[in-house]
């Protein structure tokens, strides 16, 4: 598909020819019609049904939410530099870590990759003009914004202090903060997640291009299909659970109230029935991104395609069977604990299959160490640490020692930040030329990736040690011997903050000043690299037909490209 790429002009004349005449003044390059310039104005964005524009609406919204969650994190880390609670009151500190968790989990991590990269890429990767339900797609963004406004309202008017887990009976009976408004925000946002998942499932089933069989689907699409299953089957349970918390708090229904025979532990079961799979809502799309990055940046067919595809589904299914490992110390039966512990170990198998296959893909490949690959390598390392410490936590005995300590905090940050956010940023860089039509500055990209990796490890590795030594989570007073580790962590957080601000700056810069990217700047395989950057509104001018396995980097092809 030929398009205007705006690259360097053709060499002028042959060697030895007379010098070329002086260059004419640069003409403004005429851009082809694409989804960005097809129409202008606020209305054309707020009423768009184009999946690519909706992806950008989400991108802007979640970036704002990430910044807000980041401000809370900054305040937490500032407070923790000293062992005394000298910057904020305990009540305020409770609100800070609660709102950090609520914003980051429900309003950034869960929509992050699916709603932006997934929205943008899935129709393109399967050769469709749009998602199956474009108007529902737009609706999901409005629902997200409505939910975010409720939660923002709660935060501006005083915040909430229950922890992002909303454990009863504190949240239903004792907390004097805005539990209902925050819960309502999460309840509403849940439906945006459900609608996104519904759209992805139907799109993957019904909109694939001729010839694009399931065994040819890009692994990014497989990962999102698995994620969508969790969104559909998990999210409604948290929605109804939060509804019951609100009813209990507002009307004293008694479902979780021991005074009426209710059981607070039931809340924990229902909460984690969603919230454990929710971790896989965050990490599976990142794994899909890494599969694409590893093959694209090493220009080699991904090793063990079938295993990676099926392991996504296995993680989605197993993810629904392990929620009890959050409740080992809640008083659930020992036998239930044993079963949940065993099932949790099983999750390691599909996760390890992915890690080994990515590593095997890199073996003897011509690896490019451009920014996306740096994020991919970072992901593989950090996810491995996060995953292995997850096994520590799934062990019944060790779990008792580290429950509710910084060990848990470090573990899930290795998965959610070291895993999900590294995947998100890596994917954003990899597909940025496709999204914006421009190349980001590679040097700055690498610097930022390295800063994030260093900052991340400095922030969270000391927390493993802190937790193992007994520092409980959610306290801002701590014994003085922990100060050195807390200072290291806070120092790392400041480095991490710089690392996160850099891409914001240079990606924004590149939208206007970056070099124009051709259709396929990485020389990678996949339908998204066969159309113009940025793509036209309906993605494909003619219906593509797929005739090959995915990720075919044949030797002849390489020769042809050179």
């Amino acid at each position: 598909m030929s398009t205007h790429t705006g690259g360097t002009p053709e060499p002028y004349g042959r060697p030895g020819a007379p010098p070329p005449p002086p260059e004419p003044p640069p003409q403004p390059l005429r851009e082809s019609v694409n989804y960005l310039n097809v129409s202008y104005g606020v209305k054309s964005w707020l009423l768009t049904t184009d999946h690519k524009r909706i992806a950008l609406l989400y991108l802007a919204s979640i970036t704002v939410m990430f910044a807000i969650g980041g401000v809370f994190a900054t305040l937490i880390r500032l407070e923790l530099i000293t062992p005394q609670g000298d910057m904020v009151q305990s009540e305020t500190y409770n609100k800070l870590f609660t709102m950090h968790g609520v914003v980051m989990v429900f309003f950034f991590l869960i929509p992050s990759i699916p709603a932006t990269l997934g929205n943008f890429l899935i129709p393109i990767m399967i050769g469709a003009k749009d998602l199956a339900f474009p108007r529902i797609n737009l609706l999901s963004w409005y629902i997200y914004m409505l939910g975010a406004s409720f939660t923002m309202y709660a935060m501006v008017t005083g915040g909430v202090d229950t922890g992002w887990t909303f454990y009863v009976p504190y949240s239903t009976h004792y907390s004097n903060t805005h539990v209902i408004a925050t819960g309502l925000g999460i309840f509403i946002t849940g439906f945006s997640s459900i609608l996104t998942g519904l759209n992805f499932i139907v799109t993957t089933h019904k909109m694939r291009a001729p010839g694009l069989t399931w065994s040819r689907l890009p692994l990014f699409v497989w990962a999102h299909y698995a994620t969508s299953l969790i969104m559909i089957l998990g999210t409604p349970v948290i929605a109804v659970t939060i509804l019951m918390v609100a009813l209990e708090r507002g009307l004293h229904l008694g479902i979780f109230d021991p005074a009426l025979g209710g059981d607070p532990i039931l809340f924990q079961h229902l909460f984690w029935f969603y919230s454990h799979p929710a971790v896989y809502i965050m990490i599976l799309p990142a794994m899909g991104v890494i599969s694409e990055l590893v093959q694209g940046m090493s220009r080699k067919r991904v090793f063990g395609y079938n295993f990676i595809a099926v392991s996504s589904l296995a993680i989605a299914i197993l993810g629904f069977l392990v929620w009890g490992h959050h409740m080992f110390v809640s008083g659930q039966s020992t036998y239930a604990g044993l079963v949940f512990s065993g099932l949790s170990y099983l999750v390691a198998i599909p996760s390890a299959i992915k890690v080994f296959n990515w590593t095997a893909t890199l073996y003897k490949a011509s690896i490019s160490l451009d920014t996306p690959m740096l994020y991919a390598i970072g992901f593989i390392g950090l996810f491995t640490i996060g995953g292995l410490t997850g096994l520590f936590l799934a062990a019944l005995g060790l779990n008792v020692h580290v429950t509710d300590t910084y060990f848990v905090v470090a573990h899930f940050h290795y998965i959610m930040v070291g895993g999900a956010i590294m995947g998100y940023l890596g994917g954003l860089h990899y597909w940025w030329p496709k999204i914006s039509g421009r190349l980001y500055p590679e040097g700055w990209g690498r610097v930022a990736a390295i800063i994030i990796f260093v900052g991340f490890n400095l922030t969270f590795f000391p927390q493993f040690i802190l937790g193992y030594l007994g520092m409980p989570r959610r306290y801002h007073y701590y014994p003085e011997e922990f100060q050195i580790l807390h200072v290291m962590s806070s120092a790392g957080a400041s480095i991490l903050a710089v690392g996160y601000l850099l891409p914001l700056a240079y990606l924004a810069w590149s939208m206007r000043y970056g070099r124009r990217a051709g259709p396929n700047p990485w020389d990678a395989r996949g339908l998204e690299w066969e159309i113009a950057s940025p793509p036209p509104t309906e993605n494909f001018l003619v219906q593509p037909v797929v005739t090959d396995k995915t990720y075919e980097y044949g030797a002849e092809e390489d020769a042809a490209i050179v």
Partner: protein
Amino acid sequence: MSSLSETAHGPGAHPPVLRHHFESLLNQKESSLLGMWVFIAQEILFFGGMLTAYTIYRNLYYEGFAAGSHHLDVTLGTVNTAVLICSSLTMALGVHAAALGKRKMTVLFLLLTIALGSVFLGIKVVEYADKFHHHLVPGPGFSAESLRDAHGQPVLDGSDTARHAQMFFALYFSLTGLHALHMIIGIPIIAWMARAASQGRFGPVYYTPVEITGLYWHFVDIVWIFLFPLLYLIPHHA
């Protein structure tokens, strides 16, 4: 539509009801149906959370739940079940009429469905009013005075049975309220379909919206088929 898509397709290249990103009407219909099925899967889990709570407490606190259930009016519940099943029948007939392109029949059956759904909600209001009247709404004002246990003895306020009966009514109001909310959402959608049908929008080629509305309505119906025995017939089990 942007000029780009018009040049890509040419005006009039496909029937007007076909949204441009689907390859055919069949493809569009299958997608819409699958979408509704996925939505229904989501709904099952949505009700599932509360039904889990119900199952656990119903097994733990049989006495209280039986006392609460005993107070419910089985006659009204049965009538309502019949009304709702009839509304599912009229809905199915409405979908059938739409598929045959019978405009007047479609409108008639859809309006009948709305009427039956409204009767159901009306009876529900009568039942709710009775609970309010007898102070059976959970919360500080709850009183077990009007309840009788499985042996016909009055339930004493403050007893375990009274506390558990209160939990029964909490689940009764949550579950039936959530179910009624689904009907309150469904009725305007059916009205919208009836209006579109009266304008002759549906026929053998295109009646997908009526069909997926029908799927939704049948689902709401089936939820009630589960709720009725679970809530009304507890003391009647052998």
